[in-house]
């Protein structure tokens, strides 16, 4: 097998869209006749005895799974996603749920580690959403989403189990305590100190 069929195979494998003959020629810097021959060689290599086939659809060529294997392919699609929450994700969600709306720097300060990557991924997964910037500007704040409330079986934002201890001290911590108390998440008993 010369390098051209190998190159065409790699391209068809990687591309989510069918690739036209012209695109294949362009990418491999080869002549049309050569690419055609390479496609023939590949069709032969991915014959009925294999799991894949070279197909020509929508004006292009593509590599795809063979139709008779749909059952096992459907099982892969229907597999519950491995969408478990990492400890970092859970911690970040907890901070946002109890203190929303809250900015990334605020989350990072409370967690003691940067929350940027975690917040982005939670927004992407639809569990957090942007809640606008404070009047007068400042960092974007975040709140939990409907999907979050559904996943945790909550009736709405703020429907959270009460917190037992609050030991932090300092001006920053006092603001956190105030917000937790206002939200009704923290008993307003005598302040316990560190």
């Amino acid at each position, binding site marked *: 097998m010369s390098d051209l069929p190998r190159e065409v195979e*790699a391209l068809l*494998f*990687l591309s*989510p869209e069918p690739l036209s003959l012209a695109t294949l020629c362009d990418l491999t810097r080869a002549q049309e006749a050569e690419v055609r021959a390479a496609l023939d060689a590949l069709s032969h290599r991915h014959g009925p005895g294999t799991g894949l086939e070279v197909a020509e659809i929508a004006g292009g060529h593509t590599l795809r799974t063979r139709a008779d294997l749909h059952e096992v392919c*459907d099982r*892969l*699609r*229907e*597999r*519950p*996603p491995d*969408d*478990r*929450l990492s*400890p970092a994700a*859970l*911690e970040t*969600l*907890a*901070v946002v*749920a*109890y203190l929303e709306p809250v900015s990334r720097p605020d989350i990072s300060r*409370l*967690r*003691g580690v940067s929350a940027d990557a975690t917040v982005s991924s939670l927004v992407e997964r639809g569990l957090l959403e942007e809640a606008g910037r404070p009047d007068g500007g400042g960092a974007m704040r975040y709140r939990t989403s409907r999907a979050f409330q559904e*996943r*945790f*079986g*909550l009736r709405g934002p703020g*429907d*959270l*189990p*009460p*917190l*037992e*201890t*609050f*030991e*932090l*001290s300092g001006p920053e911590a006092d603001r*956190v305590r105030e917000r937790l108390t206002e939200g009704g998440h923290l008993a307003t008993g005598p302040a316990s100190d*560190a």
Partner: protein
Amino acid sequence: MAVPSALQQPVDLDVFQGPFDLLLTLVLREEVDLFELPLVELIHGALGERAVERWDLETASELVVLLSSLAELKARLLLGEPGEAEPDPDAVEARERLAARLIAYAPFQRAAEWLAERAGECAGPRYRRVPLPGMPPPAPAPESPSSLAGALGPLLVAPPAPSLTHLTSRRVHLPALLDRLRDALHRVRHVSFDEMVGDAPPLEEAMMLLAALELARRGEARLDQPVAFGDIAITATGGR
């Protein structure tokens, strides 16, 4: 892939040409004499304008740590008694700290080199990563709200107070000690080091020794210590 390593950077001195970590090893093996090692040149070469690379902050800090260990070793060597039978236990400890750091950390540095090579070897293949076509996947498993309180709880617990025991809050001023020693010598011309420090804490004792050494350097006093670790007699030379 060649990764510029701070520890492998070339050193070019009269007494030594070669990589930085080899120099450290040779110093520890006493094959390069610390007395002969021009630290200032070494520091300029590693971190100054002549440095082979503008190191990132962390690498530079690491070099600073290693260079200060060398400086500490050299300082102890310079201040030690020549021909002393027993090596200064503190100097031995400083040397071992440097060695321990190098030895304990060396495997990770070599592992990092291995990783760098490995990344080069593994840079070729490409993955398909096309999302599965078809229906959206089923919803993820539900979570319990109590896990949220459980996750936030530990963040609201007070952290242990940092220990400050290694810091000293005591301040000792060398000029004040110098004046005290000068006054004493002015009055009696001859004082005992032990009497001067009395029951003072070690820091003040050390500073008093520096003050005595400073007066000796300026030619204002003469120091005599007949017995190793014994009392030091400080005598005014009347030079002024």
